[in-house]
């Protein structure tokens, strides 16, 4: 039996409410299957428009086997290109980020315009047509300051994502923000373990003393059900919506993305040790009230987010191998906020720097344990781990549908 069939069988016979079988977390072939089935087909959050504010600004990213460059054009349109020279494949942009009038391959200086068209290739003969060798594009969408790409030939419809998340995000004017700090950590664990850890706060009390000063552990706030029945949350939504901030829990029917505005503990306004705002200048002038809590957005498989009154934090998940995942955290503040004047960087970043490191440790220990031959799938807490169950459900559904689809296609031609 081939790998696809084995994985499909395991997923279809999955014990509901239990974690996945061992190979889904540690096996390199299963990892490849994840990449091909999920990562190379879905919309992926890559970064923020405000990271590339001017024409010629770019940043690069590695998605599995695909190096990608995302660049703002002279027409201000943000585009994504496969970062592989059409000459001999050298990476065209080799830096994490930069600014360049043209994209020039360092190998032989093949030169591409910011729209990807090849404009110079030295001495390639008379029959060489530059028009045939532009950079290959990837699908790219920018919504409310977030840049998403899709590597598939045919991308899933982005319109539902835009329609759903834009109203929640727009008031925070993140496309006009600035990056105050950005870190990337490598967690030695499968990307699904990173997500499973993120999707519950069952672990918070014992692991995140800093975060728990401000962030509620209640599953209604962190999970995917019961939020509206929580009077504390219902009050919060009513107050925020009255101020023009879309707030209620909203999840796509596929389970792939969700928005909701959740209150923080008591009087807390920000993820600081004091709970007070870390940034004097509000993130957005369009938010008329204080104590708006945190606007939560997740979009599988790449991003979860917290958008507060004074700053926003985005998280980007990128798998490196079956047992390694890069997590990039970006702190955004009002573009006019001045470090050392309007905010103290250490105060702004302390809680999530600690939390990230604690999560890294959890994920790595989790991965360690799963490697044991004695590991077998265990039950999630229905009370606390509804979010994890939802994530695994999403993963399982997407994998099954696509693996079956592929099988169906193959059998049709066989």
């Amino acid at each position, binding site marked *: 039996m081939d790998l696809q069939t084995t994985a499909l069988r395991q997923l279809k016979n999955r014990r509901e409410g239990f974690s996945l079988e061992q190979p889904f977390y540690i096996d390199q072939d299963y990892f490849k299957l994840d990449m091909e089935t999920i990562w190379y087909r879905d919309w992926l959050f890559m970064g923020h428009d405000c990271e590339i504010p001017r024409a010629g600004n770019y940043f690069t990213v590695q998605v599995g086997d695909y190096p990608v460059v995302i660049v703002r054009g002279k027409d201000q349109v943000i585009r994504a290109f496969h970062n592989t020279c059409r000459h001999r494949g050298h990476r065209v942009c080799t830096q994490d980020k930069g600014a360049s009038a043209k994209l*020039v391959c360092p190998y032989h*200086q093949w030169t591409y315009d910011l729209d990807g068209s090849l404009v110079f290739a030295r001495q390639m003969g008379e029959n060489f047509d530059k028009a045939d060798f532009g950079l290959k594009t990837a699908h790219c969408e920018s919504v409310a300051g977030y840049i998403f790409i899709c590597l598939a030939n045919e991308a899933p419809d982005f319109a539902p994502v835009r329609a759903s998340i834009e109203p929640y995000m727009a008031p925070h004017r993140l496309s006009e923000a600035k990056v105050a700090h950005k870190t990337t950590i490598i967690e030695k664990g499968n990307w699904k373990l990173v997500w499973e850890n993120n999707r519950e706060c069952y672990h918070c009390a014992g692991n995140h003393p800093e975060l728990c000063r401000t962030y509620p552990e209640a599953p209604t706030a962190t999970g995917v059900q019961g939020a509206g029945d929580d009077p504390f949350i219902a009050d919060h939504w009513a107050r925020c919506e009255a101020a023009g901030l879309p707030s209620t829990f909203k999840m796509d029917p596929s389970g792939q993305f969700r928005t909701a505005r959740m209150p923080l503990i008591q009087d807390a306004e920000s993820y600081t040790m004091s709970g007070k705002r870390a940034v004097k200048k509000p993130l957005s002038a369009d938010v008329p009230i204080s104590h708006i809590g945190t606007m939560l957005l997740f979009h599988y498989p790449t991003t979860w987010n917290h958008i507060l009154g004074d700053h926003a934090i985005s998280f980007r998940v990128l798998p490196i191998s079956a047992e390694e995942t890069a997590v990039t955290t970006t702190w955004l503040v009002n573009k006019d906020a001045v470090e050392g004047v309007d905010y103290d960087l250490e105060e702004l970043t302390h809680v999530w720097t600690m939390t990230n490191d604690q999560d890294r440790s959890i994920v790595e220990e989790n991965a360690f344990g799963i490697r044991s031959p004695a590991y077998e799938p265990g039950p999630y807490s229905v009370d606390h781990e509804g979010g994890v169950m939802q994530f695994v459900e999403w993963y399982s559904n997407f994998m099954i549908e696509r693996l079956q689809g592929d099988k169906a296609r193959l059998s049709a031609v066989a």
Partner: protein
Amino acid sequence: MNIAVNPYRHVDEMHPWSDREHLLECVAVTPEAPDVMTFTFKPNKPNLWFRYQPGQFVTLEIPAEPEPVMRTYTLSSSPSRPYTVAVTVKAQADSIGTRWMFDNLKPGMALKAFGPLGDFSYARHPGKKYLFVSAGSGITPMMSMTRDMSDRAPDSDITFLNCARSPDDIIFRWELEAKAREMPHLTLGFIVEQVSRGQLWSGLKGRIDKAKIALLAPDFLERTVFCCGPAPFMATVREALEGAGFDMKNYHEEAFQPVKPEPLVVVADHADGEQPTKVKFAMSGKDGLCAPGHTVLQAARAAGVRIGAACESGLCGTCKVMKLSGEVEMDHNGGILDDEIDEGYILACCSRPKGDIEIEA
């Protein structure tokens, strides 16, 4: 059945040669006089023709050992015959680049060239009548212009004076004498310093001065003057004309001097008395010169400073360098961001100094 491929094209069916894309392939080496050779080139690709103005120069990259050198030569050929170009060069005792060409350049070999460039042309400074005054191989731009006029306007009025060491050293003598038969208003005047025993010489002897100019070109005050030769020679001509009340706005000169072996400076042809500007290369600790009309990149190459470059048309940005002081005129093709320009960066390939500059290279 034989299908003959006819390579023949009319010039209007062909494309102009470009120094960005095409090399020059040597097709002929012709001795002209003692230590003087003409090297004739065609494009290294078919279906190309040369567009330039008579009197302009090219810069050749000569693969001499141990370092390639850049040397600038006036074209002796005429743009009226656009299928080839030629340079006519005299080998000085201490030359490197020219000596390499004498010893190594053969038909079939290709050289990289830059240009044509230059302002020293009757196309730029037209007059009713011309006086061409040259010494030694300073004759080459005059020859290019005369050849061009003989094809375009054979009744042009030219008084052509050339000074040489001996009758044998007069370059293009026989061709000029032939042209003088075809061109009714081409007047020749040769002045030589020495005549060997037994050699017939009916022309003037000695060095050029006001009297000899007046003798050979009595109406010189009415003529547009082009002068090319060693600096002392040109100074003499200039003083003679000024002393005679000549309107110097009708005087154009081209510094023609042998290239000094070190430093490797492109000594280009200087039109209208323009002087080369100094280019200081901060990281290399070298000083160079940039001829008028030349780019910072050309100056760098001449000074032996390597700056990476690819498209050489202001597009790819490979030659981006920080300018530490001075002003340049930059004519780029989108290969540099406004922010980078604000920070002080320039593209060396398309920046021409407006005075002395210093760059970080």
